[in-house]
Structure formats: C-alpha cells, structure tokens
C-alpha cells in the first residue's frame, strides 16, 4: 500500500466522524518467514493483513475498535457501535488531547533489493547455503524473515502520518547431537547491505565449536563480559519496567523518586534515538506524535523519561512520542544507544583474572521491578576466563541480579559498538564488563 492509498482509507473513515473527535490508524503488513531446524525447513509461512483502528472521543470519553474487514458497511457498523459504547462510558477527569502537529510526517524506507532477495525462493536459497557451510556434525535451527509493513494515522485535528518499512530478520542456533554446546547469532536490517546472513551463520558456527564440551562451574559472584546481545536483553527489560513516565507514576520503576540522581556508574550514558543511523527510523509513535530522542542516563545520572500522551499529561510534560498504542503500557524507549568506552573485548578478557564471557541471556524476567532485580539464564555460548584467557566453555547458569548494582559495577565499555536487535529494530551497544554479577543456580540435575 502506498501513501496515497493509505490516506484515501483514512480520509474516507474520518469523513464519517460527524461531531466527534476521531483518530484512525491503518496498520498493514506482509510477512514471509522460513523456519528451519535439524538443517531442514520445517515451517514456512506467508501472512498478509490490513487492520484499521478507529478511536472515537467526546466529552472526556474515549472508546476504540480494530477490524480487518474494511467494507464500508462493516466500518460504518463499527462506528455506530462506538457511538453506543461512548454513551455508556463514564467521563474521565481530564480531556486527553489528540496530536495536532506537525501536519504531516512521512517516511518510506523500502530497499527493493531486500524484497527481491528474500522472497520464499530466496530465503530457501540463503538457508540452504548457510547449512551447506556448517562444520561437520553440526546442524542449524532458526528463522529468516522479510516483513513489509506500513502504518498510517490521521485524525480530526488534521494530522497525517505515513511510514513504510521493509525489515529483514534472521536468527540461528547451531548445535551438534554428538557434542554438547551451541552457538547463536541474530540480526535485523532495513537494507540488504546491512544484512549479512552468511557472516551470521559463520559467527554462530564458530561459537558452537568454541563452546563444545562445556564444564560445570559453581554459582556465585563473577566478573562478566556481556556481549552486546546479552546487554540488550537486560537493557530492554529495564526500558520496559523503568524508563517510562508511566512506570514511575505507577511506582513500579527503579527510577521512582530518583530522576536527576546519580543512579549508575558515571561511565554509562544511555540514549533513546530512533534517528541514529544504527537504529531503525520510526519517526512517529502509535498516537501520531513525533518521536523525540531522549537522554535516559547521562554520565550515570537519570535524566529523561519516555512518555505517551496520557502519562505526559499526568506528569505535566509533553509527550516524547513513545506510545505503543495502549495507554496501559505508556511510552517505552525502543531504540537504545549507549556511549562506548575505551576498552575492547580483547582487553576486557586479558584484564580479567576470573570471569565469564556471555553471548546472550534466555528467559529473562522481572523479580522485583522497583528494585530492578532481574533473573534469567545464559545460553548458546558462555565461556570461563582465567588469568586473562578463555579456558573453556561452561554450562548455562541462572543469574539473579539487582541491575542498579550491576550498572554501578561497570568496569569498562568497549569503544566499538554493535547493532543488536531489540524491541522494535536495532539497539546500538558496546560490550560491558561488570564485576560481582550474581549467578544463583545451575541448569543440570
């Protein structure tokens, strides 16, 4: 769907708004995803859908409906239902405004080469090539996908928004039935030139070979070197539970009452920036607000929170354009960028007397949001470092860690940063070396 077609749908529906405030969102996507396991394709799908969300407001009341049946008769019926429901809905204390500026934001990032290379035949060819090049005795599992998405928003205050994106994504676990241990790689890109699946297959295979025959080590406190994927997992959860205005207002955030305080080590500066060339450009949020960049942590000091319209109004602030489309979620930073440091992964390892190099975490969850305690497990490549060298791979461990302490225990950051997939596109993060990271359990009988 192109911009003109999207605006035609929006204008047609807004034409039925009558004396009500109305916002309409058109959300469509076309997705092809090839899944493989045991080095063969076992699931292969294509999906297409187009949904329209209509939100009706009047007299401090609001209700909404979403449908993928776009015939006029159906849409008019949905609006009649909204009128009836609005009548039965109690008024809120405050009127929630609709976004009214700028008039238009439009962004189209479609790499035709990406779409050509990643149709179902192209995906099968790429997977076949990756599997062919695996080390003897190893098999691959994973997925390779292309998603063509478009989003358009308009409202009775006159705004128009349009965004069209193609996104490719890939992940793989490489393992062997004969040898314990596995390797992992993951990437997302909007351009074919940034999407090197061959390299990702090779990186995962190297990691699988390196992590063979792991040993068991005791849980306890270790210095850890987090690869960017592992760091992204922790920061993604912290973003969700603590970097939003709503989480602070609800008292759930570890930043509640601490804005402006030094909360992390001064080596940490963390931003949310959808305009950064290493993240994905999402110029407006699901409420139509222009997405702002945020300084979340500056030299260890907590600075700015992410807001949607409602949480911003409660805080007496302007929305920062981070709405996810549900007021229950509030505004969430999705494009995390951390400043680099002065170290390198090699220096981090060589300067470690005893520690662990961690590829990624699995099944992270929140133990206590207010205290920023997370738990989870290492997966697909965890390595023991002794006297400055990697000496062996180790079996997976459970961590249970207060992240306020962890980000105060940062020893160094790598100067080089890496694109790693996050909640909605890429983050851009360095390696992190952290002392006294708490491992609390083994993953074996």
């Amino acid at each position, binding site marked *: 769907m192109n911009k003109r077609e999207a605006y035609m749908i929006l204008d047609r529906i807004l034409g039925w708004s009558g004396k009500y405030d109305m916002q309409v969102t058109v959300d469509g996507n076309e997705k092809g995803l090839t899944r493989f396991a045991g080095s063969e394709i076992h699931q*292969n*799908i294509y999906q297409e*859908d187009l949904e329209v969300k209509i939100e009706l407001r009047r007299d401090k009341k609001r209700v909404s409906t979403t449908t993928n049946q776009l015939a006029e008769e159906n849409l008019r019926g949905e609006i009649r239902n909204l009128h009836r429901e609005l009548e039965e*809905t109690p008024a809120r204390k405050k009127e929630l405004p609709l976004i009214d500026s700028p008039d238009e934001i439009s962004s189209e990032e479609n790499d035709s080469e990406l779409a050509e290379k990643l149709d179902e035949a192209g995906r099968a060819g790429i997977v076949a090539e990756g599997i062919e090049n695996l080390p003897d005795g190893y098999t691959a599992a994973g997925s390779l*996908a292309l998603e063509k998405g478009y989003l358009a928003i308009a409202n009775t205050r006159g705004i128009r928004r349009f965004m069209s994106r193609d996104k490719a994504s890939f992940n793989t676990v490489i393992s062997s039935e004969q040898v314990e241990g596995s390797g992992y790689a993951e990437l997302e890109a909007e351009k074919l030139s940034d999407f090197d699946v061959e390299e990702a297959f090779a990186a995962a295979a190297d990691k699988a070979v390196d992590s063979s025959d792991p040993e068991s080590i005791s849980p306890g406190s270790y210095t850890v070197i987090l690869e960017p994927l592992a760091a992204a997992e922790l920061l993604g959860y912290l973003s969700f539970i603590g970097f939003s205005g709503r989480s602070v207002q609800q008292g*759930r955030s570890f930043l509640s009452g601490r804005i402006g305080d030094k909360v992390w080590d001064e080596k940490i500066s963390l931003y949310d920036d959808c305009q950064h060339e290493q993240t994905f450009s999402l110029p407006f949020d699901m409420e139509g607000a222009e997405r702002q960049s945020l300084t979340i942590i500056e030299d260890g000091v907590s600075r700015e929170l992410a807001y949607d319209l409602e949480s911003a109004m409660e805080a007496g602030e302007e929305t920062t354009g981070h709405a996810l489309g549900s007021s229950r979620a509030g505004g969430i930073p999705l494009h995390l960028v951390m400043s680099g440091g002065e170290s390198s992964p090699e220096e981090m390892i060589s300067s470690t007397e005893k520690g662990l190099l961690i590829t990624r975490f699995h099944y992270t969850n929140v*133990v*206590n949001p207010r205290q920023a305690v997370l738990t989870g497990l290492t997966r697909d490549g965890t390595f023991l470092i002794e006297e400055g060298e990697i000496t062996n791979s180790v079996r997976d461990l459970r961590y*249970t860690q207060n992240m306020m302490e962890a980000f105060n225990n940062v020893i160094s950051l790598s100067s080089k940063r890496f694109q790693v997939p996050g909640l909605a596109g890429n983050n851009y993060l360095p390696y992190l070396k952290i002392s006294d990271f708490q491992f609390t359990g083994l993953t074996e009988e």
Partner: protein
Amino acid sequence: MQEKIAGLIEYLEGKDIDYADVRYGKIEEQAVSTEEGELQEFDNNTSEGVGIRVIKNGAPGFAATGDLDRLHQTALKALDVADASSRVKGKNMELAEKESIKDYYETSYEKDPFTVSTGEKIELLREAEAKMQDEADLFKTSASLRFRRENRIFADTEGSLIEQELMESGGGIEASAVGEDDLQVRTYPCSFGGNHAKAGYEFVEDMDLIGNAGETAREAEKLAGAEECPHGEFDIVLDSSQLALQIHESIGHPVELDRVFGSEEAYAGTSFLSVEDLNELQYGSECVDVVADATVEGGLGTFGYDDEGVPAQRIPIIESGEFVGFLTSRETAVRLGISSGGASRADGWENIPLIRMTNINLLPGEYSFEELISDIDYGLYLENNRSWSIDDRRLNFQFGCEIAYEIENGRLTGKIFKNPLYTGITPQFWRSCTGICDNEHWQMYGLPNCGKGQPGQRARVGHGSAPARFNNIEVGVERDE
C-alpha cells in the same frame, strides 16, 4: 463460508499436493480496564481471515490472508511456499492417520458477555476498585475484564469439515501498596490479568470481584510492611494459581514433542526429555498424576477439535510419578507410530498450528488443607505468581510469588512475608511432592498468553490443581559477597 472453504479444498485437490487444510476464523475480542476508578481502556477487536496449509512433495507451505476476496491467490502462495521448502528438505513430511469428521461444537455458557452492557462491565470494575480503596491504604488499584468469541471452520483434503464456536471470559483486580523503597502487589483471583475460562459472563459474576476486593486490598497493605521472606531450604505449599504456572513451565512445555524433536530450538528451546524417557523416567513422586485434558468443562484450553481436525482428548502425561505421554500433533505423533493426541493449535487463522498445551491438570490427592500442612514443622504457603523464568531445556526454574504465609508446627501462624522466591530442578522438584489436596480444593486457572513459535503465537491454555506440598525446596537466592 463453509461453501467457500469446501470450494477452496476442491481447488487445492487439483494441484498435485499430498495434503491441504483450510482454516477460517473470525475472532471478536473486548478489553475493558479501569485504573484508579477511571476507565483506562474500552477496546474492541475483530479479525477475520483464512489460513491455508499444504504439503506438496513432502514439504510444508502456509499462507494466510485477511482479505476474503483473495483466497485462491493465497492458496497459490501456499503452494509457492511449499515449493521453496522442498529445496531444504530432509524426510518427507507425513501426518499420522485420523478420522474424517463432519461436526459442530460450541462452548456451553449461560450469558453472552458481548450482550452485557458496556455500563455494567465498567461499573463492576469501578465498584471493585472503590471497595479496595475503601478497605486499605493503597498506592494504586486497577481492574480488568477480557472477552473473546471465536468462530472456526476447518476443512481438509481428507474429507473433514468442522465448525466450532468458542467463548471465553475472564478478569481480575489488583491492589498495590508502597513500603520503604518497595512496591507490593496483591491480585485476585490471580496475577497478570486475572483468571480466564471457556465460559460466558457468569464466570465473571462467579469470581465475585467486589466480594474479594477488601481482602485483596488489606493483604497488599500488610505486604508493604511485611518482612522479607527468609532464605533457606523449607517445605513449601503452593496454591492452585501458582501451581498453574509451575505445571505450565515445568511439565506442559517439556512434554511438547516438537520441542523434544528440536523444532523450537532456535527460539523457546528444547526439552530435557527424550523419546527414550517415555514410560521410563520417574518425573515426580507417586502422588503426581498429570493429564492433558482438552475436554474438561470450562478449561481455557478446552475445545471440540484441534486445528488439524483431531478430536479433543484426555491424555495421561504422568501416572503415579512415571512419565507416560507427550503432547503431540499429527506431524510429530507419526514419528512415534501413534495417533495425534489433539494438541495442534494455532493462534488465530493467520498462524500455523503448533503443539500447544490444552489443559494440563494435576489430579487431586486426598488431603484437606489442614492435613496437608499438619506435619510441616516450619514452612511456607505461597500464593499467586509474581515472576517466572526457566531454562531452554526446562530444568532450572525460579518463581516469585506475591505472598508467603508462615507455617509452624503444622499450622498457619498468621505471619506473612513479602518477595518470596523459590527455585529448583524440574524432576527433583516434582519428586519432592509429598501431598496434594483433595477434589474440594481443586481449581482451574486459565492462562491466555502462552508464547511460542516464530512468528510469535499466543495460546490459551488451562491448568487445574489443588494445593500441593513439596519438601526441602530452596527459598530465596543465596548471595555471594
């Protein structure tokens, strides 16, 4: 719609394929929630479309569309996808035998939630919140309801044509209170959106959210001032709502046969179980009996037929502690030479069916609650989940609960602790089960958001259980200074 689908099946039969099925779905959902007495959301969502699965030259293809005018183009796309799959193929994909069935099934319910007025639903939530706020010093309150109606039609090239009408209702309330640098939450009847069932609005009325609001609020306030849960090895008793998640994560997922075969290795993970463990592994103690029961009245994982047209069944998973059965689909069952257990389920019309839990139920024992705790010298009774995490082979789990009630000398002392956390290794944990309450205490909980697959799918599953006792469990985490 049945005619359109039958026409599509006929069209596919002329395309030199091994097999095809077509699933039509229309899903209507409604979400109502309040926070601090104000309406937070009143959202309706309707989604309608068709998913077409084919096997061609032994390779799988699937295509789905929400545009009901593009069914034949979508069928051709499914064939193109299968052709692509055949480029990276091992053995030919086969399906276990099943009967050809023509049938209609519907959830039985008394009161259609979609006919209950908007005002009545909102008023219920606001009253429950007002009751919580009246009864205790709270930081925040919230309440929510969710309803879902799904019309499904399934047809395949083996002659089946099945229509189902499924109805779901659910909801819950939440109170939070602030202590010293801490926020404590208490929910009713369970956390993360409350309890859900295949039922009508009568399920919401029976939960009595208003009647339970006061106790929920008072316990939240008490928790905010409670001591931290002690760390150590204790006998613990889990209530049915926490057991629901314990069963889900440490029995339901590891017995999914697709995980055992490695199909989910790159995302959710595999399983510590192997095919050789069947009828060999002592999964739990002798008092542990678990079934996968898609037929139980009101279970959120209850249906008439799965998304391969296989009838709902009651499958033994653990008998007297011995592991005796996997959750299976047609594609996986055939590799064991058995028929499908009917656990192949898709999240809506747009996704392929995967092996998903139905209702994974721990069968009741013989104890009253008083008897269950009577020989515990010192222990804890834990209610309602607060956090969960388990490794990719489903061995090492860690759960947090909302509240721990102290047990001393076989009785509840009345003392509560905040932030209880326990951890274990799956078979060791289930082998430490030394008692389960009787049928009077047995209760179903519905979890509407079990994630699996790429692209991600959410399954709606149920878990029935009665409070159960586990001996010598590690509570809290040891910190290495």
